[in-house]
């Protein structure tokens, strides 16, 4: 019996099966690095400016009545936290230490930040989602691919994202609100004052009873407006190829100017639309519905327009 025959040899098939398992085990051990737990609190002015920057994960900001801030949550130990507090200024910044091919596997930071209600808040993230609630000061939220959700009574709201969805609920009366996305969905409700919302390919849905001016635009996404028209209000809805739905409260006092250059107009609150030309496509509808002096301008190139009565389903 030769020495070779006595040696223990692993069959090649077993090697092929074991090597991925070993690889996954290595990755698993790398992922099993415990998360760093955050628990910080310091005094902060009640009208402080707050800037929060995160990459991946989540940022949740809540307003409270105390003149201080509290930061809790978890973060990847390979990331770095930079904190700066100076009376009226608070900066929380998560810095990534290991960019590169494996950067997408790094777990993000999940931050819960409590700040004074009247703070001026700015949040910027890359893929982290943003949630803010119970705030009164000006709010500016910006994300690349993370979603943005805000419940506040702020008088100045700016929310922008590239592919993340934006959901705004509530505002001061009145307020100025701006919401822009490229391909995300925009949902806005219970706001008052002036609103500008625009998207390229995402949809825009607005439900409100106290908007004085609304300017809603998309390129290919649909637009839906549901709510009450304020006397003297101005409402402009425009899309290139998206469908537009407009469902005002019963007896809207407004001048309606509705044009669809290639699409149809479905009208349930006024006279029937008539064709733009004798032989070409498109429809036009101009009519006045009661007193009030509001003005509604809706136009689309190739989308359809639906004027509907507001129902509970809306």
């Amino acid at each position, binding site marked *: 019996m030769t020495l070779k025959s006595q040696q223990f040899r692993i069959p090649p098939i077993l090697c092929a099966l074991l090597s991925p398992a070993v690889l996954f085990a290595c990755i698993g051990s790398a992922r099993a690095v415990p998360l760093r737990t955050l628990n910080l609190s310091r005094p902060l002015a009640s009208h402080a400016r707050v800037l929060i*920057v995160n*990459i991946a994960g989540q940022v949740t900001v809540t307003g409270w009545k105390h003149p201080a801030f509290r930061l809790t949550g978890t973060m990847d130990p390979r990331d770095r936290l930079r904190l700066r507090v100076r009376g009226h200024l608070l900066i929380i910044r*998560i*810095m*990534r230490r290991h*960019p590169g091919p494996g*950067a*997408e596997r790094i777990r993000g930071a999940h931050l819960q930040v409590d700040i004074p209600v009247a703070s001026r808040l700015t949040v*910027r993230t*890359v*893929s982290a989602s943003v949630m803010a609630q119970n705030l009164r000061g000006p709010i500016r939220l*910006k994300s*690349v*691919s993370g979603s943005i959700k805000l419940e506040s009574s702020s008088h100045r709201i700016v929310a*922008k994202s*590239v*592919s993340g969805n934006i959901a705004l609920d509530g505002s001061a009366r009145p307020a100025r609100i701006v919401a*822009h996305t*490229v*391909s995300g969905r925009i949902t806005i409700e219970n706001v008052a004052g002036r609103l500008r919302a*625009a998207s*390229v*390919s995402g949809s825009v849905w607005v439900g409100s009873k106290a908007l004085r001016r609304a300017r809603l*635009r998309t*390129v*290919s996404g649909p637009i839906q407006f549901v709510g009450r028209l304020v006397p003297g209000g101005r409402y402009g809805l*425009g899309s*290139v*190829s998206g469908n537009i739905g407009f469902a005002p409260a019963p007896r809207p006092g407004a001048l309606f100017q509705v*044009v669809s*250059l*290639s699409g149809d107009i479905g009208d349930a609150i006024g006279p029937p639309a008539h064709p733009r030309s004798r032989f070409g496509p498109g429809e036009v509808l101009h009519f006045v519905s009661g007193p009030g002096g509001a003005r509604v301008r809706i*136009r*689309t*190139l*190739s989308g359809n327009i639906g004027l509907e009565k507001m129902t509970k389903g809306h």
Partner: protein
Amino acid sequence: MNDQPPSILEKALSTLPRERAPEADLWPGIARTIRCRRRTRQVVASGAILVTAGIVAFSFGFFSPATVPGGAPVVGRPPIDLAAAFVTRVARDAALPRPVRASLPADLRTLDQAQVLIERRLARDPGAPAVRGLLVQVETDRARFLATVEDAQLHSRNWQ
């Protein structure tokens, strides 16, 4: 035979003047003719160049997807499109999240298609204010889109 004295005719011939000055200066007319021929040649050459350039331009315009008659909504901008080049470069950028990288070119195509649709419509109906308004809107959206993309790229790089 040649030693004979010249005849009366030959004497008369020898008395005739050997040169005769022209009654008028002919050179200006000759110069004008030459100049005129040169100019004609230049005009013909310029015309040929223009006609060739026109044929080439027409051929490219005719075969480009933007003017395919009855075709589907046009995808594509003029050959040198800085916006498309910029977005393509950003879409390859590993610093941006993957869903963003995937959706950027599609969104730019949406804007391009919208613009082509509006321009076609505007060509048929130049006086329609609604169409002009939509064109302004799409141009604004395009500018905002590019600004957003640039902003996202800058931020995602700064934060890493």
